């Protein structure tokens, strides 16, 4: 049911999964909120598309390609990056604003230049690809400058969706971490950005940090030959976005504390600290831009204890989009998280399967991260324990992708009990892949 009265915004729906029953004196309420948007998009939608084929909301895309000296070792890296960027440009929808930025210790406009954005059509695509041939490697890496230039260019056009794609092959060596942090803070909320690391000489935490701050995806492309396919897919996803700057608005009653708000699917992303106040007792958590997709959020609130038989609303979750005039548009969908105190032990002690599943997935991501950190620090016993727990969790929850990645880092003796041995030799690419993708979750089997 596409609602044409509200064009440019797909239909959002929200489902809440929780066990609302608390024992006497119980205070912690957990809920999984599933947000699904349909009606606009490209794939898997039963509803009529919001936009005619080949069209979409106005969008601007900035492609940031690492041109530092290391990109020439091996030379195929630069060539593959060029080809991948060309493939991404070919995926651009006609009418999309775009720019290509070459990144070294400074940011250069490769195309179109002059602080402008080009509008995609056959001619500009060809010109852009010509410009790519002039890309050459040489210089350092200062990602903050690339992001600031992308921000300037993207915000020069009046468009709905602003998105960046960033490719790097090395560490951010030519600026301080604080400078990158400041650039990310300046760009957060102004555009979304996917980040990719090519090869194995880059820092996982930098790339995942960029994607996390700018609400995009992070991944590793260990083999430069895989870049073109990845870039095409990323651009397709970007072109499928319908609405930007969606915030999860959480209202809680007086006396409640929000323990955490996490995105738990498709990846784990803690949003708790990214709250902006939105009136009394309400706060907004950024979720970035949405196409046809579904995401899950884990909300944990602490409510004041009430007597048996009492019922209260622990949280009201809705979705809002800021408007030009400073107000917000409510996207209609809302979910109620309730608390009911009961002396029925069966009701109050059961854990909602969704909550249990995602609690496990969040622990899985945490265990991998800690395990790899311990391994790097030389604490092999600690690393074995953590990665063993990760294997156990991945096995129990059916997260096959993560289980496969773990199996490249540890020898699994018994997955059910989490008995593992650290591999003596681990390919760097495997370890980085596991670290980068540790936050990927699977949905609960229904």
């Amino acid at each position: 049911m596409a609602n044409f009265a509200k064009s440019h915004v797909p239909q959002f729906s929200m489902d809440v999964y929780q066990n609302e029953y608390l024992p006497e004196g119980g205070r912690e309420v957990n809920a999984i909120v599933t947000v699904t948007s349909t009606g606009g998009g490209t794939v898997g939608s039963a509803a009529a598309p919001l936009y005619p084929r080949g069209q979409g909301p106005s969008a601007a895309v900035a492609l940031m390609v690492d041109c530092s000296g290391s990109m020439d070792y091996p030379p195929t890296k630069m060539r593959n990056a060029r080809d991948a960027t060309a493939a991404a440009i070919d995926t651009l929808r006609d009418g999309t604003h775009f720019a290509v930025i070459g990144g070294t210790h400074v940011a250069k406009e490769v195309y179109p230049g002059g602080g402008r954005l080009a509008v995609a059509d056959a001619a500009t695509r060809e010109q852009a690809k010509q410009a790519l041939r002039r890309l050459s490697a040489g210089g350092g890496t200062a990602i903050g400058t690339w992001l600031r230039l992308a921000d300037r260019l993207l915000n020069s056009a009046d468009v709905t969706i602003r998105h960046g794609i960033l490719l790097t092959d090395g560490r951010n060596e030519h600026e301080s971490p604080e400078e990158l942090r400041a650039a990310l803070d300046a760009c957060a909320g102004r555009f979304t950005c996917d980040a990719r690391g090519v090869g194995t000489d880059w820092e996982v935490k930098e790339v995942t940090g960029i994607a996390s701050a700018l609400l995009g995806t992070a991944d590793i492309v260990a083999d430069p030959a895989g870049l073109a396919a990845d870039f095409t897919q990323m651009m397709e996803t970007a072109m499928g976005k319908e609405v930007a700057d969606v915030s999860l608005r959480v209202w809680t009653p007086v006396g409640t504390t929000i323990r955490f708000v996490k995105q738990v699917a498709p990846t784990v992303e803690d949003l708790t600290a990214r709250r902006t106040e939105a009136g009394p007792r309400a706060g907004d958590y950024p979720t970035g831009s949405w196409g046809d997709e579904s995401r899950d959020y884990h909300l944990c609130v602490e409510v004041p204890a009430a007597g048996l038989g009492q019922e209260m609303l622990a949280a009201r979750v809705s979705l809002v989009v800021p408007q030009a005039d400073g107000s917000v548009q409510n996207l209609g969908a809302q979910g109620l998280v309730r608390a009911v105190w009961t002396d029925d032990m069966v009701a109050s002690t059961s854990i909602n399967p969704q909550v249990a599943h995602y609690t496990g997935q969040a622990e899985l991501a945490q265990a991998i991260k800690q395990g790899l950190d311990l391994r790097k620090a030389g604490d092999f016993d600690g690393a074995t324990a953590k990665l063993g727990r990760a294997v156990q969790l991945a096995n129990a929850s059916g997260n096959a992708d993560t289980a496969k990645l773990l199996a490249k880092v540890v020898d699994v003796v018994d997955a059910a009990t989490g008995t593992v041995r650290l591999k003596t030799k681990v390919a760097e690419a495997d370890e980085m892949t596991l670290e980068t993708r540790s936050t990927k979750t699977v949905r609960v089997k229904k």
Partner: protein
Amino acid sequence: MSQMPQQAALPKCPSCAEPVEPGDLFCGACGYDLSVVPEPPQDHPTLTMNGASGDGVDWPAPEPDRSGAPQAPHLPADLPGTDSGGTPLPEHGPGTDPHGHGSAPQPAGSGVRFDRPAEPEEYPLQAPDPRVADNPGNTAAPEEPAQVCVACRAGRVDSDGYCENCGHAQPRERDHVERESGPVAAVSDRGLRHHRNEDAFAVGHTALPDGTPAALAIVCDGVSSATRPDDASTAASQAAGDALLAALPRGTHPQTALHEAIVAAAQAVNALAEEPATAREHAPHQNAPACTIVGTVVTSGLLVVGWVGDSRVYWVPDDRSAPAARLTEDDSWAAQMVAAGLMSEAEAYADERAHAITGWLGADAYELEPHTASFKPDRSGVVVVCTDGLWNYAETAEEMSEVVPADAAERPLHSARVLVGHALDGGGHDNVTVAVVPFPAPPQGAGSA
């Protein structure tokens, strides 16, 4: 408005006639030790959770402050901003103060005593709502008075029935239901420990083909471990009540009619199992809705009872020297044990399985066996139809006859309230539903005199 009579009835100091407040230990004017005066016996029972009594009470009303003095008003407008849905809250100007505190002098707070003789103040505790006082028609009120939360008395109530401030669910219509039909009255209450009322009842009166009156009452108790027990009890009581009101005027024998009514109720509950669960219900376990049923039909000479499950009927004669009796036999584990001679009654009811029911209405019931029985009492009395929420606190017929007021036949609604109050005073661990039916059915138009 409904609070006013209570204020007029404030007790006075026995020494100086200064009005004293219920919690006072000493008179504020003369210092007389009030503890030496025995408190007048509280002859009115706990009727509702807010403690209000008498007819015409606006239920639900906020619980009256124990000190009798209003608290400083917290108003929604004290905290400007948006509601949880993102829409701005309506402004409450001083003139639209729902309590009228803003335009009246503040009375003394609870920590202040009157050190002066009582002032001839018309409204010593709370000024009337200025809109009501100045404008009896109340048509020009600038806005709808916002419904204020009963829990925190500060927040507005949103469209979902939760407070915009403290989040507490507001009392629902079903939390406390009272109904009268001719000579029959029934009261149902959520109790103190359950979050919703899963009991339901139906009361009615009609005339048999020969013109003699007939009264009926049906009481159902939803099975909490089933899905949507509240829907089950509503459907069953409605179906049974409607079936009786249709069958009795046609001349169907009351006992047959009651049997058929229970069958109709069972079908209504079975039908629920096919409907999808309501959107709010994310129950951990889904199973067929189920409830118990108990009903009575009273005519000028006949008293018929019918039941499935552990809800009960008691017979309490007006002349209390005559023995009272329980007229139903529970479909419960304990009753079966006792009936089979395997355990004594005391042993059986002490077992944790005692209250497991062995018969109910619902798609997953093994076999529907409605029990019916008819009696011809030789004297007048009342029939008490109730769920275990009451009889847990007055199990034997003797205990029940002690808590039924002496004038039960004349004031059935009052008696039903008294009985619900008895259960609440005892702890209110379950939903409580009581119907009181006088026997014999008084002739039509005779009234309650």
